């Protein structure tokens, strides 16, 4: 395979949150895979159209879905994800991708969501920042070695649709899921120093690009 064929463009949604950390984790993944690729910030609808895979970073999901200028890009993300573009949402990003979200204290949130991922989210499922924690997770999809889960005011998945595969659990709570081209994690793989989750997304993005013949 020529290096040109391998080249891939991964976007990181650049409104709010740990954007640069996801850029760095993706670059680390590309380097470890020895793949030529670009990592780009994505904010405007036309930028969403140009990437082979997209990461929705952690941060505050309420903010990330609030402004009109942001809301213009959300329908384009929805369309591209339905067309099969690989996407990974970490923490707030997974909330944005979900079908419905509610808060442990407040109840149903009125957030605008992208909605492709058929799960229901319980926001702040583990409590406030004082309850944020690190814990090792078994994620079969990534191999035998444990994955360090960094949970910061993390959500959990309270209901999964029939096409959704649970890829990680912590005690009884679902903390990572996959639905075809969509990955959602309640934790922050971009902060763990372990790029396996980002490498997985890069692989999916390369396959998607080849399937589309571009």
């Amino acid at each position: 395979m020529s290096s040109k064929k391998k080249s891939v463009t991964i976007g990181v949604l650049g409104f709010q949150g740990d954007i640069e950390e996801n850029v760095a984790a993706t670059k680390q993944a590309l380097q470890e895979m020895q793949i030529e690729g670009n990592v780009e910030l994505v904010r405007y609808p036309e930028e969403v159209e140009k990437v082979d895979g997209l990461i929705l970073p952690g941060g505050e999901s309420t903010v990330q879905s609030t402004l009109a200028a942001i809301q213009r890009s959300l329908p384009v993300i929805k369309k591209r994800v339905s067309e099969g573009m690989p996407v990974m949402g970490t923490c707030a990003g997974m909330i944005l991708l979900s079908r419905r979200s509610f808060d442990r204290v407040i109840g149903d949130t009125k957030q605008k969501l992208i909605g492709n991922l058929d799960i229901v989210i319980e926001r702040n499922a583990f409590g406030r920042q004082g309850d944020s924690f690190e814990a090792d997770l078994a994620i079969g999809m990534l191999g035998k070695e444990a994955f360090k889960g960094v949970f910061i005011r993390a959500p959990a998945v309270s209901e999964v649709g029939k096409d959704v595969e649970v890829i990680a659990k912590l005690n009884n709570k679902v903390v990572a899921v996959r639905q075809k081209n969509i990955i959602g994690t309640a934790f922050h793989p971009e902060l763990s120093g372990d790029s396996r989750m980002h490498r997985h997304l890069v692989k999916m993005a390369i396959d998607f690009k080849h399937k589309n013949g571009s």
Partner: protein
Amino acid sequence: MTISLVATEPKSKGVKVEIVENARTVRGTTLLKRGFAHMCKHGVVMDVTNVEQAVIAEEAGAVAVMVLDKLPYDVRKAGGVARTASIKVIQEIMDAVTIPIMAKCRIGHTDEAKVLEVTGVDMIDESEVLTPADEERHIWKWDFTTPFINGGRNLGEALRRIEEGCAMIRTKGEPGTGNVAEAVTHIRMVNNEIRKLRSLYQDSDRQELMKATRELKVSYAIAEETARLGRLPVVNFAAGGITTPADAALLMNLGCDGVFVGSGIFKSDDPAQRARAVVLATTFYDDAKIVMEAQKMVDEKKSLLGMDTKNLELRMQERGQHA
């Protein structure tokens, strides 16, 4: 790792290891504290004094709210001793919004901070807006599980606070004045000092770097890490005097990771609209067309009038500078 862990205190009392059912969990680590601060990046934290303001802030897209008894402008007017907010108000706000809640405690007031930690706030700001309780020392923040914010006017101050365990730095600016000039001075100062350190590091001049470290009154490890990164090892927010969307954009373009707005929103006559506008300008700070859209959303006649920072009786930024 994208989050620097340098300066972490070994065996910090704030770190809690527990077995929860079948999992071993660790709370209060440097990664979790600084990680939380990183989640606030590119966002706007808004000062609020009651539930009504907190709800407006959340709806406008605030990344968190900072609960105070009085807005800095009113602290200035009222004089007297400014202390941490009423616990009842903090709890009411916790029950009303889903975004993180921050609260201020006095510089060096370890026990106000302990009370705030038990209340369950997400982050504590050891702030010069309140009257300092200890002129000699700041809080030893490694003893807490909750992350802290501190103000810094220059690199030495910022790095000393990080070595005490703080997870986020903000410029001090001159709070409650509606004047952004002091915040601009502080971020420029930090940027210039880092640039100097970095050039020594790139020239591998360890002797000069060590000399600079002594002048900053910090450890060699943190000075070297800052020089290597070319930035502070924790996020650095703008604060003090931000009033308009363009103010927020100015500070973001100077390299701040996010913005605090104190009196600028709820001391204006168009708070809900202004709150949205400041969030918009912070998100798209590098796109002048969108910053213009944001400026169009506010009416300059409704801005906090503000004051000249040259002839103030109370210069809040000088509080805690000798520690």
